[in-house]
């Protein structure tokens, strides 16, 4: 390759590098200070906090790569395109590869990937599963006392049981604030998925399976509950609104529920982590 062309390419390379650095320098503060803190699902719960932090880190790691690729494509298209009316029929330079840049690329991507995997695993353990379903025997669990709430998915409604209050079953989900909650999600029929968006909790409900998720809510409020796994005709209508209230309000509420539903509670099966309800299949 003639020296002039080589100089030209070196100039292009420097420009692209500079642009990438500048763009990253501009983007990173925005990502960290503006975008990151506003990532879903919000910071009102332990699970939410860890997810927001996680999302922010992912964005930070992605930013330089994204900037590099986008700037490279844009720059090449602008700098190297053959303008209409340019009758120069010559080909481009016969470059078949460039070992250093290949090695650098491989090294950086590998480093990023390994970091993300290790970070994600650490974050997962540190945040008690970050609100995700961890199966019957969770490895990441909070130390100290937990407040058990069972979520029962059925076609097409979620109902809830509170074992520490005699296994009372309710139609609404109300949680005490500042208390480490241990959700036990199960299903009576098809596969559902219990998604409490603002809490940052999601756990599939499988028939005959107990799926545990942890969360601790910091301040009172409401949150929306949706079914996140296709479960049949009324999947789209399987939503509800939950409430987070103070300890005392919770006590009065649960007492009220125990009174209201005394009629059906006597027939409820003993509280257990999974149920095999009658009637059996095909019986009807």
């Amino acid at each position, binding site marked *: 390759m003639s020296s002039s062309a080589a100089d030209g390419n070196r100039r292009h390379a420097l420009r692209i590098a500079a642009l990438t650095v500048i763009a990253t320098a501009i983007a990173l503060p925005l990502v960290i200070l503006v975008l990151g803190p506003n990532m*879903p699902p919000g910071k009102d719960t332990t699970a939410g906090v860890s997810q927001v932090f996680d999302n922010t880190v*992912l964005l930070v790691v992605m930013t330089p790569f994204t900037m590099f690729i986008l700037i490279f494509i844009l720059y090449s298209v602008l700098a190297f395109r053959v303008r209409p009316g340019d009758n120069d029929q010559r080909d481009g330079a016969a470059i078949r590869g*460039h070992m250093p840049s290949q090695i650098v690329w491989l090294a950086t991507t590998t480093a990023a990937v390994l970091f993300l995997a290790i970070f994600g695993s650490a*974050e997962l353990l540190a945040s008690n599963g970050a609100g995700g379903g961890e199966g019957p025997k969770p490895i990441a669990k909070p130390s100290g006392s937990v407040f058990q709430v069972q979520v029962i998915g059925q076609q097409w409604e979620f109902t809830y049981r509170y074992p520490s209050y005699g296994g009372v079953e309710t139609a609404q989900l109300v949680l005490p604030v500042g208390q480490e909650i241990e959700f036990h999600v199960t299903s009576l029929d098809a596969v559902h998925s219990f998604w409490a968006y603002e809490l940052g909790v999601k756990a599939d409900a499988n028939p005959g399976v107990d799926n545990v998720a942890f969360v601790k809510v910091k301040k009172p409020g409401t949150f929306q509950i949706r079914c996140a796994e296709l479960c049949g005709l009324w999947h789209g209508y399987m939503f509800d609104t939950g409430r987070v209230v103070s300890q005392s309000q919770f006590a009065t509420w649960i007492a009220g529920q125990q009174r209201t539903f005394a009629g059906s509670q006597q027939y409820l099966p003993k509280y257990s982590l999974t149920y095999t309800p009658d009637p059996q299949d095909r019986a009807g």
Partner: protein
Amino acid sequence: MKLRRLIGFNLLTAVILGVIGFYVGWWLGSLFTSESVAYLKESNQHDISLFIGYFTGVLGFLVGLGFANYPVQRMLGKPASLREKETQGKTRYLGLCTDHKVVGLQYLIGIGAFIFIGGLNAMLIRYELITPNQHAWNGNNYLTLVGLHGTMMMGMMTSGILGPFANYLVPIMIGARRMAFPRIEALTFWLLMAAGAILMTAIAFGGFPTGWTGYAPLIDQANMGVDAYIAFFAIVGLSMCLLGLNMVATVITMRAPGMTWGRLPIFVWGQFSTAILMLLAPPVLISTLLMVMLDRTAQTGFFNDQIGGSSYLYENLFWFFGHPEVYILALPGMGILLEILPVFTRKPLWGYKLAVSGLMGIALLSWLVWQHHLFMSGINADLRPFYMLSTELISLPTGFIFICALGTLWAGRIRLTSPMLFCLAWLFNFLIGGLSGVFLSDVPSDVTTHGSFFSMAHFHYTIMGALLFSFFGGIYFWLPKMTGIKLNERLAKAHFWVMFISFNCTFGPLLVIGFLGMPRRAVTYAGYLQGANTWVSVSAFFLGGSMLIFIFNFVWSLVFVREPAGDNPWNSKSIEWQLPSPVPVHNFDRIPTFGPDPYPYGNVGSDAVPSMPAVTPARPTQ
């Protein structure tokens, strides 16, 4: 002779025999009675009749096309035949033809038709989602539309590039006259068409509420319509498996002298790596669906926890197929991308070995990641760090593809033709798709994104944004070769810009909507998402409109203008462009001998003259 043609083995006979076969099978099924199928009487469900009907219907269809002739002859000890000599004339496009170029064009039209049906369903889905409440499609129809859209696209687009382009081009590129198994090649296409027809019948039997994943036990519970889904996917699986087998065998055995593994065009590598997955993944799907079929008919208990089955079993088996499946959708597009880039940058492919290892690396890793679809399901929660790692490792070979594409752009002499534009769009879309994939692969952020519109938008970026864009890039690039007729370049660019912009206006916001808490496949959504959803629906309609531009261009150029393309309109140097357009029936008179360099572009010195083609195969005498 003419009469003989009419009543011979052709599409008409096939359709008639197919319908007859269906009703015969339906009647046979109605004869089944035993205590385990006693449920039939009280549930009005005729699953057994329907399954047998579909099976015999497909059988009749294939017999009508003439697929039975050869096996029967062989049973009688008649000798094997290389292939039928291609009948000339238009009729060969309407029946069993073993010319790989005819099959390629059959695939292009057939799959194209079904893709547009799938797209129509998408439009109807977006129409429903304009408002937060169900307002347009009655009863179960919304879920049926979702299922039809997903299943149709997944089933058809898996063969969307291997079918038309690989069948047509791979034999030419490796210097062969045919695929290894021409009859199997034809069979894969007609199986696919039969399957598509079967899926369309789902709405006649009450539709199906399971989406394209068909999770058990819902699929055991659903109405008869889901039998169409099961039959469709099983037949598509068979078609995919045979197509993959044929492709792998062809690349292994049919390469011309000089075409060593190190000289294969990157397009062939892309199809080859895909074909390996296509050969091995679908059998798992087929056996899974057969288990579902038995659950629904013979009352086995594979996925019914109440008689010892498990819903986890289905999720494991399905995604063990399902994840290679999504790379089956990604890899051939990469092949097209890296094949087209050198032509319009006028440079050799940058980092050929790296690109090949990227393709093969993706194909290998895709077997180790399937449980990242089940992060929230509670299966093997302890293994989630491993699947997180293996999933994120896939971004390394994917990164190879990117760096090779960027290196090829570098210091090239870029010509922004319509195929080139689609390739650049591929890079952009797949970048977004890959980055959004990182959020899904990372368990803590997957808690929110899993099963939401975010994951839906993610795989639309990787499948539609990558596969469909490279599909259209391939059409604009190779259709002149296949038909000998030029497509209108201005309309092509109009199509590109409308499609690219409206695509990003559709799925970019959907990423955000998912983050804001909208679950997939739900007909209702929270009121505060209405503005965004309306915007998405409108741009989705524009996206649909861009397809009409393409159809108009296709018809206008091919039917009315018919401007000859010439043998090598793009001044490409790969072998298919050294042949006349369209390629003659036997491709080559004498099998060519290949030189060392698959991409002989580029100037050694700044003052070099335009370089010459690497291979000059003898042209067929016209």
